[in-house]
């Protein structure tokens, strides 16, 4: 009997190991469902949006996807565009009951009550830091609790550097095309700014609070990395766990790092000395970005029933736990958090606090631009970073770039809302 082939488009969730760690899940699933074969295609985050748009517009993929992994920030735009298939034939609302609070409403379209995607795993931003490095400079966790003290710690560490081999204070996210909005968000929200107005009808990132937040953050980046002529620029490869950095805001769970202790890039010194805490608090509070990845079936999915079976398997508690451990994500189910953090209760507490304060983007009829906004903000921050890199940073450049990005985002709202 020939098998139904389900094409699964996913991101490199575990970098180059993605396929390897997924293989076990595929094998388990195929044993339980002998008439289905899962064919994974890994598409880098930076290209995934374009590839999806290209597929949606031209429909000329040789192997069109039946299940897609999508970022939570993309859900509003993809919903507006009608890319996603309503999954109510195979899932009911009870599926959303167990989802962690900030993502609870991500799957549902408020206009139609359709279920358009299901959170697979979550991305909760926390501040990783090296206790030993902070101690060496006479600091503790209390000294990285708010914007100004965080900045002070960063500058102290950075100013002490004498050679390229010395530890750097802070790691930027390093994925400017897709992730930067996650990184800039805590600083923006902490200062009382936002990307969109509260009714999500208009942009807000050009308002004074947001401008100040952008300037504050870029001043920090400039002070840390201005005129970097080194071969790596401002985002050298390697992770916080490689030992190159004293601090990093990261959305990966600590277990990824603990699970990879033998990886040659991971320094035992870091593993012994790291800890995590909330993102620094601004004048308005500490607000981490909560995002993650969802699973969805595109409208042109060929085998919706089989595709739904694969999704049902991936979001099952057992599969989700296993997968989250190895890719370094947090589960999307509230009921799994306790088990996930068994033996590491201190992390559970930090995550619970972050989830309480965390913010995500939700779909409303007016938020069609959220997915595009991510690209616009990224492109604008990219251009500012380039100026920082070449030692030409100024507040005027930030104002100029914000104005350009605002004009583009306003253009979208004028024709698409």
């Amino acid at each position, binding site marked *: 009997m020939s098998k139904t082939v389900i094409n699964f488009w996913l991101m*490199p969730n575990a*970098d*180059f*190991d993605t396929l*390897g760690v997924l293989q*076990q899940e595929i094998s388990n699933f195929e044993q339980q469902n002998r008439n289905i074969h899962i064919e994974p295609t890994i*598409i*880098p*985050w*930076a*290209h995934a*949006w*374009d590839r999806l*748009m*290209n597929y*949606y*517009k*031209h429909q000329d993929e040789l192997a069109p996807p039946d299940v897609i992994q999508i970022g939570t920030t993309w859900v509003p*735009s993809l919903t*507006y*565009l*009608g890319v996603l298939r309503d999954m109510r034939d195979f899932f009911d609302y009870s599926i959303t009951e167990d989802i962690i609070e900030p993502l609870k409403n991500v799957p549902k379209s408020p206009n139609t009550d359709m279920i358009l995607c299901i959170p697979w795993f979550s991305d909760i931003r926390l501040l990783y830091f090296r206790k030993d490095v902070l101690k060496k400079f006479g600091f503790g966790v209390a000294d990285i609790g708010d914007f100004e003290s965080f900045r002070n710690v960063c500058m102290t560490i950075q100013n002490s550097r004498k050679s390229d081999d010395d530890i750097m204070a802070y790691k930027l996210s*390093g*994925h*400017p*095309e897709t992730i930067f909005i996650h990184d800039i968000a805590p600083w923006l929200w902490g200062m009382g700014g936002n990307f969109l107005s509260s009714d999500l009808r208009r942009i807000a990132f050009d308002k004074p609070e947001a401008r100040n937040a952008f300037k504050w953050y870029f001043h920090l980046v400039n002070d840390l990395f201005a005129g970097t002529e080194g*071969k*790596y*620029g401002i*985002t050298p*490869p*390697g992770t916080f766990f490689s030992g190159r950095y004293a601090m990093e805001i990261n959305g990966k769970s600590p*277990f990824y790092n*603990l*699970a*990879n*202790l*033998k*990886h*040659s*890039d991971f320094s035992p010194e870091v593993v012994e000395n790291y800890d995590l805490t909330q993102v620094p608090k601004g004048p308005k509070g500490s607000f981490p970005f909560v995002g993650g990845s969802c699973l969805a079936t595109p409208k042109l999915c060929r085998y919706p029933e089989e595709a739904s079976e694969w999704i049902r398997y991936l979001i099952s508690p057992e599969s989700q736990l*296993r997968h989250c*451990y*190895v890719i370094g994500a947090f589960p999307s189910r509230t009921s799994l958090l306790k088990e996930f953090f068994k033996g590491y209760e201190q992390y559970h507490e930090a995550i619970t606090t972050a989830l309480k304060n965390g913010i995500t983007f939700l779909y409303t009829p007016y938020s069609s*631009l959220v*997915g*595009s906004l991510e*690209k*616009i903000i990224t*492109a604008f921050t*990219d251009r500012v970073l*380039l100026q920082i*890199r*070449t030692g030409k940073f100024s507040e005027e450049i930030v104002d100029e770039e914000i104005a350009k990005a605002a*004009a*583009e985002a306003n*253009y*979208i709202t004028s*024709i*698409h809302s």
Partner: protein
Amino acid sequence: MPENAEKKNKKPKVMPSSVVFSKESIHLISQDRDTDSLFTHALLLLGKSLGKIEATIFAWDKHENILRCQKVLFMGVIQEGAELIPLTKEMPLWQLVIGTTDIVIDRDRHKSACFALRFKNEFLGMVRVSLLTGTSLTQNIISQIHTFCMELAISLKNLTLFLQNEIHMRQLKGSFEITSNIVKSIYLNKLLGLVVKSIVKNLGFDRVRLYLVNKDEKLLKGEISYDMRGETTSLEKECYSLEHGIHPFVDMVLQFPDKETAVEFHDRVVYVPLHVKDQVVGILVVDNILSQEKITSDEIQTIKSFAGQIAMAVENARLFEKVQELSITDSLTGLFIIRHFKARLETELYRCKRYGDVMTLFILDVDNFKSVNDTYGHPNGDAVLQSIAKNIKETLRKTDFACRYGGDEFMICLPNLKSKDTVDFGRRLLNAILITAPVVNGSRIPVTLSIGASCFPENSEDIEEIIKQADKALYKAKNQGKNQIYIWTPDLR
């Protein structure tokens, strides 16, 4: 924690004395059909041969003079990179760009080197290899990496051409469909719908909007929009006077034809003028603003190539509409001719019968029109008829329609006008005509009308009978002193 979480790649601990990139492995990278796989395979091959390295592939952005990182291999793991290297002529790496060398070595430590990806004289990008073992790059290794990069450049160029070819084939296929749609309909509205739909469908833009210039009214009018969701939207609410500063689109139309196209928002919105000879008949706006895909110069060229055809098709459709209008309207008054009026009347009567609606028919005749012609001359007589027609058009509701029945006679069909409202309506029309008649030598030409009316189904259900009845009622109105309305009654039989 699951055991499988601890699985890791094993890597060679010592640097090989020589590097061998087998022909088979190089052949393997030439089989890749997307750049992502090509770079991944190439980096893995480097890693496999060189051991503990960091290798990065950059693509050259010749417009901005930036090397953009595509992929990084770091300690056996492939990552997407974020690094950008803006180059200036003073930097050593500029030598790679201009082709004076293919290799730039880190002179201080000999731990890293940059290799050009060059195909013939075209600089495509760069591969940077750094040893993480503490040893230096030997001449032998440098030479082999250089050879490997030359092979990689050929594969990259072939792949780029292959991908470009695929895009061109798709554009060509799309072009045929768009061209056939442009000539598919002669009716303007249908034509515009077909054009915008086929452009979105075949060229893959997020949205296409079409605005046309109305020369008589000196306006730029929004016509139609179609987007990738498959939604058609009327743009009739967008209407701008053709004056500088009114709207950016108007400014663009006024700048054309000097300007061929205008591009905005980092190549994501393109404005294309629709020309016929030196006349701009409209503007086509295509955007990829939501999907954030750049519109390529190829796509701009493709859409420009259709602009002339679209403009010509629009002009033809407008001409056809004009001819069609002329064939059913009276050239003096602009009202329908009797043949078209009767056809419409039949349809209207059928509709009224089907839905149980009422309808009233008016026949109007200018009182003493012969003396108007004799006193004021025929040109002024014509002006009187035009003035009456204008008043009729302005007084009628959207569902009403009228024709010039004969020399100085008019006929009006008034659906849903009940017999009890007929007199009021007729009087309003008579008053309007009286006070707006043309002025000659400072005084208004005294014009009055008589109206005869018949109502469906009250008076008759037969079309010819209704016309006869209205005519008899008109005769009665004339006999009773003119400048009045008379509704048919059975005693007029």
